[in-house]
Structures are given as structure tokens and as C-alpha cells.
């Protein structure tokens, strides 16, 4: 008999990876999104078409890049295009199925902040800023957000809207001319949140094995609603775990 154990980052990564279907095109941010996309490609989605904002289209790195522009991404890509091309001809043109994003703060309506904590003009914490995120959130057919759960990160309203999720609710994306569906899942180390189809508000739809719903609501900075059926995330398989660990260098 085998006892499989895993870290909370590992189940978050595996759950995110499972959200990707084979042959999808995926705009990959660095960090957790990159790990998850590469896990998907090595498990159930070998035809996943990964695009990094450095212009590497259809890249198949044999190890995780540290940055969005590592040499391995260029060496293994179908083609490398310029930065204007990847943003204008690929992202803006609506050719990308899924954007995989991380965030420092996310709010009730899945708006994302990667700019500042506190006031913009005299910030408490200055974060890196927008990067590709605003247009990834606008133009990909859908967006999946991957971030660790905490009440500092999951807030009622973000301090700065770097990238629009569902604005102040249903209909805002259309009003703003944003063509993709926006964030359809937020995957954390505790579970999964999805926008309520009627209101756009994030509700808890899944928890990872061993996680109590109360833990999640506790770690959320607004009064988190819970779906009628909260699904238990299937445990990572041996294969998934070994792929994650081979990529991250753990164990």
C-alpha cells in the first residue's frame, strides 16, 4: 500500500494543469502558471501550445524556465516572433485560448492587482506592475488565475485594478469592450473559485483533499459564498506528482 502525500503548492499546480485541454493555446506567465502549464503538457495535454510573452510560440522546454525569456524557450519553439508580434498578432487578435496568470491581490469579482498595495501615489508595497496581464485578461478566450490563498491576497476590492476580471459584476466586460470571457477559475492552494454565472462574483466550487470549507472562507477577505455542490479535488496521481517534482526539482 502506498501513501501519497503532497504539498499545497503541488495540488494547486496539478489542479491548474488539469484545467488545460490538449491542443489548447495557452499564454503562460512565469512562476506557478508556467509550472502548471508544463505539467499539463507532460501529462494529459501533450499537444498544449504554449506561448510566452517573449515571443516564443509553441515552445516545449525540457526544464522550467526561470524567466519568460530563457534560451530554452527559443531553442524549442515552433517559431520565435518579436514582442510586437506576440502581443498584436497573437494575443490581441484573440488567437489564445487560455491565459494563465498569477496575482498579488484578487477581489470578489476576480479583478487582479499586480501594481501596488496601498495608495498608488504613496504605496505601502510597490509591486512589479502590469506586464502582459491587462491584455492577457482582456483578450484570451478565458483566464485561469493561480495564486496562494490568504485574506491579504483575496480582498473585497483590489487596491489597484491592473487587469480586469469581471469589473463590478456581470455585463461589465462587454461594456468595457473586453472580448474574452475573463477569469473562469481561480485555483489556490486550498481550492477552486469560479464566477457565479449570474453575477460574476467568485464563489467556492471546489476544495482540495483535507481542506475544510471554513479554512477557505477564513482565508478570504470577503464574505465568500459557497456553491451548492462544492466538489472535492481529486488527489494528484503518482504520475502527476512525479512530473511536478521532476520540474520543480523537489524530492
Amino acid at each position: 500500500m502506498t501513501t501519497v502525500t503532497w504539498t499545497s503548492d503541488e495540488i494547486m499546480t496539478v489542479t491548474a494543469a488539469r484545467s488545460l485541454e490538449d491542443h489548447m493555446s495557452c499564454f503562460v506567465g512565469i512562476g506557478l502558471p508556467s509550472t502548471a502549464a508544463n505539467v499539463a503538457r507532460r501529462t494529459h495535454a501533450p499537444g498544449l501550445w504554449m506561448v510566452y510573452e517573449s515571443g516564443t510560440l509553441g515552445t516545449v522546454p525540457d526544464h522550467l524556465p526561470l524567466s519568460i525569456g530563457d534560451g530554452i524557450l527559443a531553442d524549442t519553439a515552433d517559431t520565435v516572433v518579436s514582442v510586437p508580434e506576440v502581443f498584436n498578432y497573437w494575443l490581441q487578435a484573440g488567437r489564445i485560448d487560455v491565459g494563465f496568470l498569477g496575482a498579488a491581490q484578487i477581489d470578489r469579482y476576480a479583478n487582479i492587482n499586480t501594481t501596488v498595495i496601498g495608495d498608488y501615489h504613496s504605496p505601502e508595497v510597490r509591486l512589479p506592475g502590469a506586464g502582459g496581464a491587462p491584455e492577457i485578461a482582456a483578450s484570451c478566450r478565458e483566464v485561469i488565475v493561480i495564486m496562494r490563498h490568504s485574506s491579504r491576497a483575496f480582498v473585497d476590492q483590489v487596491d489597484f485594478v491592473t487587469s480586469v476580471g469581471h469589473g463590478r459584476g456581470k455585463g461589465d466586460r462587454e461594456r468595457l469592450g473586453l472580448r474574452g470571457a475573463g477569469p473562469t477559475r481561480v485555483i489556490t492552494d486550498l481550492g477552486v473559485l469560479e464566477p457565479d454565472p449570474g453575477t460574476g462574483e467568485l464563489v467556492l466550487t471546489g476544495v482540495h483533499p483535507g481542506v475544510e470549507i471554513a479554512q477557505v472562507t477564513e482565508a478570504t477577505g470577503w464574505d465568500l459564498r459557497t456553491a451548492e455542490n462544492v466538489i472535492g479535488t481529486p488527489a494528484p496521481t503518482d504520475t502527476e506528482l512525479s512530473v511536478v517534482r521532476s520540474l520543480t526539482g523537489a524530492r
Partner: protein
Amino acid sequence: MVLPLDEAVRTLVHDGDTVALEGFTHLIPVAAGHEIIRQGLRDLTLVRMTPDIVYDQLIGAGCARKLVFSWGGNPGVGSLHRFRDAVTHGWPLPLQIEEHSHAGMTNRYVAGASGLPFAILRGYSGTDLVGNNPNISTVTCPFSGQEVAAVPAVDPDVTVIHAQRADRSGNVQLWGITGIQKEAALAAERVLVTVEEVVETLDPVPGQVLLPGRIVDAVSVVPGGAAPSYAHGYYERDNSAYKAWDEIGRDREAFNAWLEEQIGAPAAGAT
């Protein structure tokens, strides 16, 4: 055309200039940035999509009055502490910032390279970048009535890039991830290129960008001039240097020691 780096910087970069050092993770002109610090240039408006450690160093050394950017961080490591210190505490000098998205900055360079006053894109809509940056606006399509975002061209006084090779006529060849360098160079009034080597003949390489010598003002031979970033086909990214910068950048005294010892520049301000 081929000049030593110190002479090229002295000739092409002046106090108060708008200066873009570009290179998207790959081929970052780090050695040229250090030379700018060493020469004590001041009041620069620094432009770069992804200010990382060399911009942290320029800002920490007090070269910059303003930063125009879309993502500022130590890629794969974390934050830029000298940048944070300048923004939140004005050390060693207050730093104005003008903030865009990558899509916006990209198209600002494209407009600059194209001789257009502005660029249009689908972007920014609904974000708080809009209200905090007067250089983000909108125009309406005269055919469909759709509203799209508009950003002004960026026209640097000087663009500095690093490339693998040049020939003696100043034709420059770079390959691998080519990023925004072509547009950044074409958008600029003056162009300085540091290269790994000068060769007799630039044999074509798949995926290359070739910048004709007539748009290049100076080439300086600086082998390793992109380290700790990398030069495709020449050397790898030194990830440990990026990680090591975190500790140096965190502390004003450690940073000043680095300035004096590694760059040969004076300390930046009272710590």
C-alpha cells in the same frame, strides 16, 4: 563607428536624455548600463518594458529622474529594492514613474519606429492604469465607431542594445529572442550597440534581426556585455547573479559598497 564603450557612452548619452536600454530577458545591455553609472549621468528618463537589475542599479545610483515601464522586477526572483526605495522613500532621489502594460509599451515603440505620433491597440480598458497615466487615451474608429486605446510614440534620444555580432560597417546581427530591440533602435534618435564580437562577414542566422549600419551610431565590443542575462549562442543566463542581487539591492549600504567596488562609482546618497 566601432568605439570603446566609454567613448561611445560619452558621445551619445547626455544628462537629461531619454534613454532606452532594451532586451527582453535576453541580450540586456548591462555593461553599457554600468558605464552610464560610472560616468555619473544624471536626470535621465529611463525607458524599458522590463526594468530589472540593471535598472535597479541605475535608479539606485541616482541616474534617473523618471522611469517609463510596464513591468519592474527581478525576473524569477522578486522585487527590485532600489526601485522600491526610490518610489516609496525617494532614495537617493525621488523617481517619477509612468506606467504602461507590455502591449502599450510595445506599441509605443512601434509608433516610434514608424514615425507616427501615436499607436492604437485594444488595451487598458477598465484598468486603473488609465486614470494614473495621461499618456493613455482613446480614439474612435472612423469606420466602425469602436473605441480603442491610444498611446503616444516613444522616441528615445538614445537606445542602447546588446547584440551577438556586428561588422565593421556597423551592421548589427542578433538572434534568439529578439524582443523589442528592432523597434527600440528604429524609434531612437541615436543608437549604441554593444556586441560580443565584430566579424568580417555576418553570415545569416535563422531568426536573425539585422539592423543596417546606417541606423547605428556606435558599436562597442564588449564580450559578456549582457551578463548576467544571456547571449544566445555565447553564454547562459547567470541565475545565481539574479538571486544574489536580491540581497545587495535590499540594503542601501550593501548597494553603495557594490557601486564603489564593482562599478567604481561613488556611493549614491546618505544611507
